[in-house]
């Protein structure tokens, strides 16, 4: 988030335009989480589709409640030691007036809180892609709650909160390269190092079951990302949001093309999954950088990230860690690429006056970016691995091997994504109950239900 740009003499007033714009941006960012669910859901096998969708969707429930209760306070409350915040009025969002403005801006605190909430929701959901097919749903829900509390809320404070150490140091993270993508990617790596590989990793075929779902998810992500990125200036008064919107589009396009070209040269085909993955890699990489680079710089950042991520997704086979859907390869690598490239491509004419290496700024911004990347990566990796270990030792992180092979959807959710049943597949639920007197009296609700069924 940008530092306060107004001076005391011209205290900001509520802007209907900015408030409306930010509410729409918040809704766009919300849509990214179900978009992510489809992006991931299409990439898994048929038997784990619902679990994959649910791992993202549950974050909308858990993190929303935690955010209102204390998350917003920890992330954006008054600073304590540059590490976390706390503000009594933010607890339960209870001490706020509906017209009370976010400090230094023209939008209400409620609007800022809800916009930031959507970031907090999607970040843990991003991690789930690495854990496909094998994690107990309750263990995952607990992990989301703990991870948001111990990792996301403080890291958001470091990077965006006034007084946070990275913010004060001058690390540029426009919309979440470190706080969201490196954070989630490193967490994914930490957790999979603890819980281990899927049964049959590198032996059984694990082809995506629905590439159209993947494309739908990627398209929703791309669309929602305009809110994620262009909204991160918290208003529309000076063109930085518009620059960010343009950069988001061009970097994503460049990354998609770069991934496809790499694939065509390396594997002989331009794949659908490659197009979707390349687009997401571009979106990830431009997230920290788009407020400070030019559109030509955005093309370069997108293209570099596209190629790097396309190369990185194969690492799991080489090193033998099972990052099911390449959260490390796309989000961690893409986030690192974008965050570091800020140190090269920052023009000094966008969100910040800082200039990168290519624009005469020397190494100053570059080392700040490296410090931000390294700290978030290390903290998230270690804290997430410890959390996973704790949960694994208590309630257990993984489903049994038999259940994993049979399919996690049936075991954890008592459902299956698609009805492929042929002869003898499934029986109709019992729709009638014994008449009163035969087998006890019916309740009123039973009678009404039966009437509906009969009708």
């Amino acid at each position: 988030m940008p530092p306060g740009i107004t001076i005391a003499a011209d205290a900001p007033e509520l802007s209907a335009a900015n408030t409306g714009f930010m509410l729409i941006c918040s809704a766009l960012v919300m849509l990214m989480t179900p978009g992510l669910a489809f992006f991931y859901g299409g990439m898994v096998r048929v038997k784990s589709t619902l679990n994959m969708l649910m791992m993202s969707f549950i974050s909308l429930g858990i993190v929303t409640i935690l955010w209102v209760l204390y998350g917003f306070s920890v992330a954006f409350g008054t600073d304590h030691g540059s590490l976390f915040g706390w503000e009594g009025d933010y607890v339960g969002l209870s001490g706020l007036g509906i017209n009370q403005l976010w400090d230094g801006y023209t939008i209400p605190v409620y609007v800022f809180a809800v916009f930031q909430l959507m970031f907090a929701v999607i970040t843990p959901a991003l991690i789930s892609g690495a854990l496909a097919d094998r994690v107990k749903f309750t263990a995952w829900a607990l992990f989301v709650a703990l991870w948001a509390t111990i990792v996301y809320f403080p890291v958001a404070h470091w990077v965006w909160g006034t007084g946070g150490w990275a913010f004060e140091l001058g690390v540029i993270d426009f919309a979440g390269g470190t706080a969201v993508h490196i954070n989630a990617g490193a967490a994914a790596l930490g957790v999979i190092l603890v819980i281990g590989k899927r049964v049959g990793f590198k032996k059984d075929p694990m082809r995506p079951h629905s590439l159209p779902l993947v494309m739908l998810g990627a398209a929703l992500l791309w669309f929602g990302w305009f809110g994620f990125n262009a909204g991160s200036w918290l208003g529309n008064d000076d063109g930085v949001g518009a620059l960010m919107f343009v950069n988001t589009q061009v970097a994503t396009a460049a990354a998609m093309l770069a991934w496809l070209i790499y694939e065509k040269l390396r594997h002989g085909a331009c794949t659908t999954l490659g197009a979707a993955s390349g687009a997401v890699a571009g979106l990830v990489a431009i997230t920290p950088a788009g407020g400070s680079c030019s559109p030509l710089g955005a093309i370069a950042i997108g293209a570099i990230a596209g190629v790097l991520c396309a190369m990185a997704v194969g690492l799991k086979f080489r090193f033998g860690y099972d990052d099911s859907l390449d959260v490390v390869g796309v989000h961690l690598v893409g986030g690192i690429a974008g965050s570091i490239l800020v140190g090269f491509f920052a023009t000094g004419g966008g969100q910040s006056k800082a200039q990168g290496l290519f624009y005469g700024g020397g190494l100053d911004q570059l080392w700040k970016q490296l410090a931000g990347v390294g700290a978030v990566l290390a903290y998230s990796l270690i804290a997430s691995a410890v959390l996973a270990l704790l949960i694994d030792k208590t309630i257990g992180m993984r489903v049994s091997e038999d259940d994993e092979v049979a399919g996690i959807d049936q075991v954890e959710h008592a459902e299956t994504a698609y009805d492929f049943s042929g002869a003898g597949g499934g029986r109709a639920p019992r729709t009638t109950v014994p008449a009163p007197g035969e087998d006890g009296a019916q309740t009123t609700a039973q009678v009404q239900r039966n009437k509906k069924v009969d009708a």
Partner: protein
Amino acid sequence: MKLITAVVKPHRLDEIKEALQAFGVHGLTVTEASGYGRQRGHTEVYRGAEYTVDLVPKIRIEVLVDDDDAEQLIEVVVKAARTGKIGDGKVWSVPVDTAVRVRTGERGPDAL
């Protein structure tokens, strides 16, 4: 009686059906099948990971015929199924002891 079984490319089904009707066959059974012969399968790439798909989609057509018609019918099916490209499939026949029409109880050639 003979049971003629043909495992062929799915897109030849209409031609084979028409040829069989022209020959005077009254009924047949079609099943979706998968398999491979000498052509093997194909390769798919997902984020650089290559998967070999061995089994390719086929259809399996089964027809019961009188012994006298069997050879000629095999020729009819082979001609209709042939594209000349690899993966055209196989046709074979096996002897059948008994056939019964369920509705009437007729047996043997009368049941065809």
